[in-house]
């Protein structure tokens, strides 16, 4: 079977493929959102004074980073029903991706928080801030700036990793490409179209990430008026 430009372009603009692209986008965004929340909670637990909280968070991070995502997904979707826990495809995918991202993000957030100078904590406490205000007003915004680049990498990774959900029959980009490929056996055309859309999505994200980094980096990038020499009038 030879290459068919017709099929290629047909797939490229096919509403079925575009529907898959859209699913991949929201699946990634929602999974990341769940992962970020879980990651923040796990990071704060890991840094808490309570040995129990630290233990729970460490166990979670250890277990989820120690097992393949694909195994986690099939356990959630096909294994849990044995315990009477039946989750739909979408719920399973979001839970699997969210938990997995959270485990990785926990370490990223922890590193971000530890990168904030101890003097910032001193200043916040001296101003009468309690732990929550200190975190919200002073520490987390500064940690976030450090966290954005690795977070962006994870988002990029998640856009592609979301294709694993095709295994549990989530109707996302790869699965739609697979199904098109099976109709006319135009395998290369279908999968190349999928690949092109993944590249487009990660490229768009790259631009978005640049803007976010610029936004959070702005207070640090401004040129100062420090040590600017006075113009020497005698030399004019």
């Amino acid at each position, binding site marked *: 079977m030879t290459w068919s430009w017709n099929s290629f372009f047909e797939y490229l603009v096919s509403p079925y493929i575009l529907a898959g692209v859209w699913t991949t986008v929201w699946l990634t965004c929602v999974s990341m959102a769940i992962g970020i929340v879980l990651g923040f909670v796990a990071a704060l637990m890991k840094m808490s004074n309570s040995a129990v909280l630290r233990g729970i968070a460490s166990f979670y991070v250890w277990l989820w980073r120690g097992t393949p995502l694909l195994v986690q997904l099939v356990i959630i979707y096909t294994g849990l029903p044995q315990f009477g826990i039946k989750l739909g495809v979408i719920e399973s995918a979001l839970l699997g991706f969210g938990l997995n991202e959270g485990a990785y993000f926990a370490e990223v957030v922890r590193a971000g928080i530890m990168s904030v*100078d101890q*003097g*910032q904590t*001193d*200043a916040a*406490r*001296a*101003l*009468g*801030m*309690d*732990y929550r*205000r200190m975190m919200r*007003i*002073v520490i987390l*915004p*500064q940690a976030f*700036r450090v966290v954005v680049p690795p977070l962006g990498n994870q988002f990029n990774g998640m856009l592609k990793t979301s294709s694993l959900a095709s295994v549990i029959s989530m109707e996302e980009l790869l699965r739609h490409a697979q199904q098109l490929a099976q109709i006319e056996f135009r395998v290369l055309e279908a999968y190349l179209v999928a690949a092109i859309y993944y590249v487009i999505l990660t490229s768009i994200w790259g631009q978005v990430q640049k803007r976010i980094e610029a936004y*959070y980096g702005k*207070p*640090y990038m*401004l*040129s*100062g*008026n*420090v*040590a600017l020499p006075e113009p020497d009038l005698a030399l004019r």
Partner: protein
Amino acid sequence: MSNENPIVEILDVHKSYGPTPILRGVSLRVQAGEVIVIAGRSGGGKSTLLRCIDQLETIDSGEITVCGEAMAGSTIHLAPGQMARLRQNLGMVFQQFNLFPHLSVLDNIIAAPTKVLGIPRALATAEARVLLARVGLPEKENAFPKQLSGGQQQRVAIARALAMQPKVMLFDEPTSALDPEMIREVLDVMMDLSRRGMTMIVVSHEMSFARAAADRIILMHRGQIVDDLPPEQFFTAPSSEHTRQFLAKRLG
């Protein structure tokens, strides 16, 4: 006068870092309106004492009372929220300024008043502008800390602490990280504060400031207060040999 209710009372405070004793039985009473300068060799426990007053460090034994409320002591167990409230009596200025780098000068100053005390933003902003004018930086409210010189950052840090309307200001070597030409501008702001009657405890080696502003100068040596005298006596007739050695080095 010295036996009336002190605004800060420190009683027999001990503190160690592991096996190393830092404070060895420090007692100090500060009356409202007094300016205390604490000097001494590094490692003598000056900064630790200041940080203990604000409970940025815990103490091993002894008692610390600020504005009649116990900050620390053997029978004192404050919830974190209570501690945050008690710290509002105290303003603290740090050697490294510790401005919040992600916030503008104005937001640095109004963050705590608006988010901790709940003062409306417009009112807090108006008060912040008054303070910025007082520290000589009325045009810098939209600048970020990184755009300011060290002396300017420290003056913003003083304004930020004052915005919480503290009863006592603590200064932890406020000019030690500054280039010599910027020390003056910070000391001027501190002089102005002392003239306005602010109670101040200042850890500093700036003896010119101590001579001009201090009611009492304290010399700490190896975790103990070895001298506690008015400036004229401190400079001319100190009681401790450590003070004489300190002055000999400082004043040549």
